[in-house]
Every structure is written in structure tokens, then in C-alpha cells.
């Protein structure tokens, strides 16, 4: 394929159960990658069954009417293939890859596990053990804890963008086979599934394999559109400043103390922008300029100039829902106050003044140059195709992303930054060494709110 554009080579096939399959052939390595997006994800999980969505996915390949867990594993492992299911806020994702010579048996197994799981009781116990182990890991992860604390405040504790993808430790043991079967029935259907496959295979061969594998979905009733995340209740505080970029006060701070830590992880959450929003590209570019690389504003200041951190990072979490914009970094406990002050200053300056001369052009040039790197693998190409389809973008964007970037000017980027850097909505949480840094909030310029302890 080399330096040719991708989009003209993508074909679309409507499979018999009514599922769209996007296909792209790449012959360099004798492998295939297949990704399926099922709408719903954590948004389709009731809060009182927190953990059921992830458990269903982790149980899919542990038993079908035709094979037990060992028979499934034997088939996959004997071929060196991989089949994985994972959960995101808005989707469930199935990913399959293997050698091209093994395409049919692997795709058949994917269909069998997706459509006809039996949720064996003994395997459910093991899946629950794994989930609890994952939660124990999360409990001691500074970034996770700070993010969860900030998200609970920003979205509300029961909101799907705030809950743990793994679930709630107290609820997981109560989720039985019936709960899993019920969730499977209410979330897996042809009208919620879109597929993309990239690799060294013939299109007919892949679509034939999938038509055969997904026969059970053809007989299932359509479920209709998947639920989306509810709108966040916007909790505005009395204004601490006149407008973005001027004399901003640091936002309120919450701390989770973790023993045996030497650093403190800090997380800022602000209003996000949905992928379908016309302002998304500008928001992504603004976020990139603030903290998306080692030469970004936050890293230039806090890493290079001040030596406070190994690195800062920013991103957008949203999909069809706006989600949030976030920034994070780790510092030693004594530097928390300073880090909060400096990040606040940098955010205020960027939202107030926008990018300086040359900064925007450099970022556009970088992102355009990095674009082919993001499409290096079959998997990344398949995922990019599905993301474009999901958010109503044309597949030509695979090749024309630099043109989209070129259309963004400083004004659009500054406006996007002001949407995200809204200090009346931003929430900050810290987790790690030391007691609650009450002094951090007290020391922040102009803050009228007291610090909160956990």
C-alpha cells in the first residue's frame, strides 16, 4: 500500500445480519485484524449493577454450548491468535487478530463467543476474582484515584463517565449468571454492531467467514439506539474571576492520601467536547497545545523550566457525549501548591490569549506529520475507520486529516480552549503521598473555596 491514499481502497459490505463491514487489504504481513464496535458500553450498564458490563465481556470467551473455556483457549492458543473483549464508556469492543492462514476458525470462534456465551458458574467466580484484583490495583494507583475523585465531583458519582469500568467491589460478588445473561440480551444485537477488518485477506473470504459466524445475530430482535451518557449537571460556583484568562483562581482541590507513595498525582477535569461537535477538532488541537506533547505549554513550564515533574499530559475523554477535558501530572508532595498555581497560570494564559505566533503552525505541522504514524498497524487503521464512521466523518478523512487541521485558525482554537478551561467548572483532585494539602487551595490565588479533605 505504501504511500497511496487509504480511503479509495476501503470497501463496505452489508453482512446478512445487517451489519456494516469496512474492509481494507494490506499484504505486508500475513495477518488479519478485525475490530467490532458495539454501541452501549458502560452507558448501557445500570449503576446498581456496576461491574456487569465488564464481567459479561470477560466471560464471553469462557464457555459456549459447543466448547468449554479450555476448548476455546486451546483453539485460540494453538493458532497463536487473540480474541479480546473490552469495555469503554460508550462501546464494547471486540478485537481479533491472527495469521491470515487461520482466518476462518478464528472468526468463527469470535462469532460463537459473542453470540452464544453460557456464562459457566465456575468461570464466573474466576472472572470476579480477576475483577477484584483489578480493583485492588486501581485502589493504589495515584492517577486512577485522583481521576475517580475528580470525575465523581465533576459528573456525579453514578454517571457512566465517573464510574469504574471494572465495577464496584461491593456489587461484583452479587452479580450472578442471570444478571450477565440479562445484560448480554439487552446489549448484543446486529443493529448495535459495526465491523472493520484490515490485513492480508480477500474481501469475500472475510465477509463469508463473518456471515457464517454471525448467523445467530440475524435472528435476534433489533435493540434500537444504545443509551447515551446523561447530560452532566453543570455545577457552577460563584464566579472567581471575570472571564477566561484573567486573574484565575485555582479550582477547589480534593486529596486522596495513599500510603507508601513518594509522589502526588494531580488531575484537572474540565468540560469536554463531543467527537460529533463541530468544535471537536479545535478542542483537540487546543488540548494538544496545552499538554499533548513534551513541547506543550504545561511541559515547557513545569517540566523544562521548573523541573517539577517528569511530564504532564492532557486529553479529551468524550465520544458521542462531551465527557471531559483532563490534565494530569505527578510531583513531589512539597511541590503540589506550586504545581497547582503554575498549571492555573498556564491554563489561564492560554485560554486568555490563545496560541502565540508560530505555535499553532508548529502543532499543525506536527500532527500532520504524525498522522501516518497513527495508521501504521492494521489495528490502528481499523479503529480509525470505525471512529470516523461512528462520528459521521467521511472515510476520506483517513487521508485528509492534514487539510482539516489546516482549516483551524487561532481564533477557533482559543474559543475551544475557553470552553474547556472554565474555572467555574474545573475540578482538581490529588492522590498520593501525604495528608490532604489543605494549604494548596488556601495558597492559590483568589480562591474563595476551602480545601476539602477525603
Amino acid at each position, binding site marked *: 500500500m*505504501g504511500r497511496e491514499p487509504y480511503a479509495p481502497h476501503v470497501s463496505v459490505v452489508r453482512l446478512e445480519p445487517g451489519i456494516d463491514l469496512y474492509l481494507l487489504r494490506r499484504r505486508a504481513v500475513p495477518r488479519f485484524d478485525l475490530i467490532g464496535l458495539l454501541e452501549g458500553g458502560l452507558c448501557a450498564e445500570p449503576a446498581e449493577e456496576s461491574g456487569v458490563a465488564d464481567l459479561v465481556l470477560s466471560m464471553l470467551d469462557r464457555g459456549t454450548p459447543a466448547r468449554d473455556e479450555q476448548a476455546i483457549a486451546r483453539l485460540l492458543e494453538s493458532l497463536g491468535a487473540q480474541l479480546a473483549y473490552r469495555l469503554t464508556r460508550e462501546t464494547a469492543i471486540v478485537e481479533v487478530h491472527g495469521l491470515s492462514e487461520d482466518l476462518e476458525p478464528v472468526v468463527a470462534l469470535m462469532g460463537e463467543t459473542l453470540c452464544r456465551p453460557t456464562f459457566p458458574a465456575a468461570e464466573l467466580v474466576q472472572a470476579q476474582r480477576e475483577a477484584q484484583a483489578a480493583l485492588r490495583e486501581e485502589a493504589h494507583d495515584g492517577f486512577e484515584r485522583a481521576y475517580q475523585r475528580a470525575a465523581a465531583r465533576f459528573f456525579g458519582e453514578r454517571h457512566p463517565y465517573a464510574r469504574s469500568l471494572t465495577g464496584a467491589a461491593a456489587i461484583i460478588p452479587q452479580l450472578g449468571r442471570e444478571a450477565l445473561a440479562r445484560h448480554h440480551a439487552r446489549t448484543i444485537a446486529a443493529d448495535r454492531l459495526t465491523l472493520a477488518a484490515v490485513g492480508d485477506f480477500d474481501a469475500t473470504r472475510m465477509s463469508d467467514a463473518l456471515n457464517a459466524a454471525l448467523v445467530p445475530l440475524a435472528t435476534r430482535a433489533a435493540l434500537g439506539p444504545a443509551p447515551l451518557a446523561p447530560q452532566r449537571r453543570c455545577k457552577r460556583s460563584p464566579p472567581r474571576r471575570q472571564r477566561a484568562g484573567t486573574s484565575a483562581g485555582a479550582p477547589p482541590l480534593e486529596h486522596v492520601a495513599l500510603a507508601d507513595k513518594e509522589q502526588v498525582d494531580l488531575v484537572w477535569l474540565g468540560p469536554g467536547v463531543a467527537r460529533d461537535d463541530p468544535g471537536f477538532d479545535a478542542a483537540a488541537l487546543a488540548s494538544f497545545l496545552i499538554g499533548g506533547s513534551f513541547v506543550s505549554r504545561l511541559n515547557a513550564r513545569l517540566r523544562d523550566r521548573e*523541573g517539577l515533574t517528569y511530564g504532564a499530559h492532557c486529553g479529551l475523554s468524550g465520544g458521542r457525549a462531551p465527557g471531559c477535558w483532563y490534565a494530569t501530572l505527578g510531583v513531589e508532595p512539597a511541590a503540589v501548591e506550586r504545581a497547582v498555581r503554575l498549571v492555573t497560570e498556564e491554563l489561564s494564559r492560554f485560554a486568555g490569549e490563545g496560541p502565540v505566533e508560530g505555535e499553532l503552525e508548529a502543532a499543525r505541522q506536527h500532527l500532520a*506529520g504524525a498522522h501516518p504514524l497513527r495508521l501504521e498497524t492494521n489495528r490502528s487503521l481499523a479503529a480509525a475507520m470505525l471512529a470516523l464512521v461512528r462520528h459521521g466523518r467521511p472515510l476520506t478523512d483517513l487521508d485528509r486529516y492534514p487539510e482539516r487541521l489546516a482549516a483551524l485558525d487561532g481564533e477557533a482554537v482559543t474559543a475551544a480552549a475557553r470552553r474547556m478551561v472554565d474555572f467555574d467548572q474545573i475540578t482538581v483532585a490529588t492522590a498520593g503521598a501525604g495528608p490532604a494539602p489543605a494549604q494548596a487551595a488556601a495558597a492559590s490565588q483568589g480562591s474563595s473555596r476551602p480545601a476539602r479533605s477525603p
Partner: protein
Amino acid sequence: MLPAAYDVHCARLENGLELFLLPAADVPLVAVSVWYRVGSRHDPPGHSGMAHLLEHMLYKGSARYPRGEYDRRLHAEGAVHNASTWFDRTQFAILLGADRYRLALELEADRMRGALLSASDVRDEIGVVLHELQAGRDEPGARFFEELHTVAWPRHPYGRPVAGWAGEVAALDAAALRRFYDDHYWPDNAYLVIAGDFEIGRMQADIDATFGSIRARPGTAGTAGTDPATCAATAAGPQDARDGHAQVDLAPGERRFELRRVGGQEEITFAYRVPGRADRDAYALDLLAQLLGHGRTSRLYRALVAPGHAVHVAAENMSLLRDPYFFCLDVEPVPGVPATCLEALVEAEIARLGREPVAAAELASVCKRVRADFILRSERLAARTALVGELEASVGWTYLSTYLERLAAVTPHELLAAARRCLQPDRRVIGHYRPRPAPVDGGQ
């Protein structure tokens, strides 16, 4: 049969710089990596972290590219770049668009001899490295891994943390770094591994234009000629004669340690000290790792996880170094299951490997899995350069050309013999990580 992605074209410049080129037109990208035959094993006594700090410092500018310029130029082109220091080597890697690779060559050539290493930059960067060490110490897994090395290799450089001990790192200075740089960063102590969408003749010309004018280390002659036949498997030999050579401690005797911290999962690691990659048993050990701890059909999964004694198991032959290293089995117990019970179960499976030949079907399945994994991983250009580069740093890149054939030729009896030789109790270190409860006011 080795995938075409690993067709390696090799050459050598007159200054001794070796080239390993893997052309492939699958994607419009080029992965450029420069490998120096120097790693943490070469840190002078009492100055641990020297090689790692120098790696950081080589981003801090030269006369031609002032501080920040290196990052700025690569960033502007959308390149992804990284560097890493390991026990035997240091590498700098750049992935970028195929039409821009010349920039990567120019920057790397400049880095080889042009670093400024100013005292103030060194002081600043020590701060960054201390942050990195601090973040690492916050991870129970990283602490555990560090302790494992200290216990397993008390008299070998592999027993020191690659990034160094914090106290020693804090005391490093610009003069010592300069000496270290001048000892090791020369074309005849380095090699380039490049994969991607390029034409070989053009690439060689570009490399010659950028690196060719750098002289070889004073006192050495470089190596004239570009005959591919002359540049195979040279890694281990000459380096030993220079420095970094260390006696490997494989003295018999089981060693144990326990680490207790707040957070993380309980974990028991059985780390067997096994011969280096060049040893005849390396192929069998790769297969034994798959057999024991990869996937739900693995023996340890069936013996420990399926009956409810462990949450996870894993196995890996980590021996991809010049000297002996680890064959590791990791077990994450189900809370409340005693470690003695898990140790007995692991012992029983190891003993079985040394007693009963593996069935032909099980061996065939494992071989297919390793082959598939090898091919599937070759998709990324950076994975290709990493594999060739790591092999060259340890046993020589030509190891790759026969790897799959030799793996497929391993017999059940060779597996049995390797298990008996290498997986002996007196070759192992057993480490036990036990999370302790958080203090009452710990906030968890």
C-alpha cells in the same frame, strides 16, 4: 522460515559504524534507531545511573542544535522519538514519515559526538531523573523488580538499578559524564538499525553523508570495507575486552526475599538464573515459558488458576542479554491462599517437566504459537528494529535468521534436559510481595 520483514541488509562504514537495514514499503514510514554498546553494566563503581543520565543529557543540545532544538525539529515533523538504557546497551529511536528520515540521521549523527553536557543542564536533568526514580519507587512492582535484581546478582552490574541508586545519581557531575561520553559514544561502538520505506542505496548514501565524517574512537582503526559477510554477530566479543565485563554469579543456592508495602497485589516470583541467549538451552527455555505460563491452556494456569489458588500466572524467558539472566514465573495468589501451597504446586509442575517428556501435540501447539507471535509482532517497524537491535546487543543479529527453524527442531527430550539443567531450585530466587494494610489514617 523467517518473514520477509526481517530481510536484513548489513554494511559497515569505514569508521566502524555498522548498519542493519530492513527495507519494507508497507507503510510510508521509517524507523531509525541508533544503538550504543554501552549500558548500566558500564557504570563506574559508586556512580550508578551514569549511562542512564547520559541518555537523558543527549537531548540537551549540541553546538549545532541548541537545547530544545532537537525536540522542536522532530516535533515539527510529527516524529515519535524515545530513548532507553538497559544493562548492555543504550538506544535512541525515531519513527517518522518516510520522506523525512534524513532529519533523523542528521540529529543522531550530531548526538554521537556533539553533545554539550553543560554543568547547569546536568544539574537540572539530575532533578528530572530523581523524579523518575521517585515515580518508580511509588510502584510496588518496580520496587519488587529492583529488589529481585539486587538479591539475584549481588556481585554483577545486573544487580544495580539501570537508572541508578538515587544517592549516587544525585552526586553525578558533568565532568564524569563527559569522560563516560568520550569513552563510549563513537561510531565503532555503535550500530544503526533502520526499517521502513526506503531504497537501500539511497539510505546508505545518506548515512555515509551524515555519519561518515565522524572519526572512529582514537586508538582504534574502525573497520574498513562493507562486505556484508564481515559484520555478523560481533556484539559480545570486542566489548568484553574494553570494559563492562563482569563475573557472573551463578553460585548454587536458593535465595529468598520478601517485600511488604501498602497497595498492589500479592505476588510470588520464581526467578531462575539461566544462561544467556547464546546458550543451547535458550530455545528450549522460550518454549518452556510458553508451556508453563502463557494462556489458559498453560500448565500453571491449569494447576493454579483453574482450581482457584491463583488469580494470574505468567512465565517468561527474559534472557536476552549478554550474560545470564532470568527465567521468571509469576504467581498472583487468590487472597488467603498460603504461599507454601502455591510453591508446592509450582514445584510439582517444574518437577514434571524434568521427569516426563512433553507430548508431541502440546509441543507442536506451543511452536505454532511462538511462530505466530513472531510474525504478528513484525507488523510494527519499531518492533523489527527493536528485535534486531536487542539481538545484536546480546548474541548478534544473525541469531534471528535461524531462530524459528531451531525452535521448531527442539525435541521433547531437549525440553526435558533443559528443564533439568536450568530450572533447579538452587538456581532460583523466590521473591514474595505481600501488601500490608494501609494505616488507619491512610485514606484508603
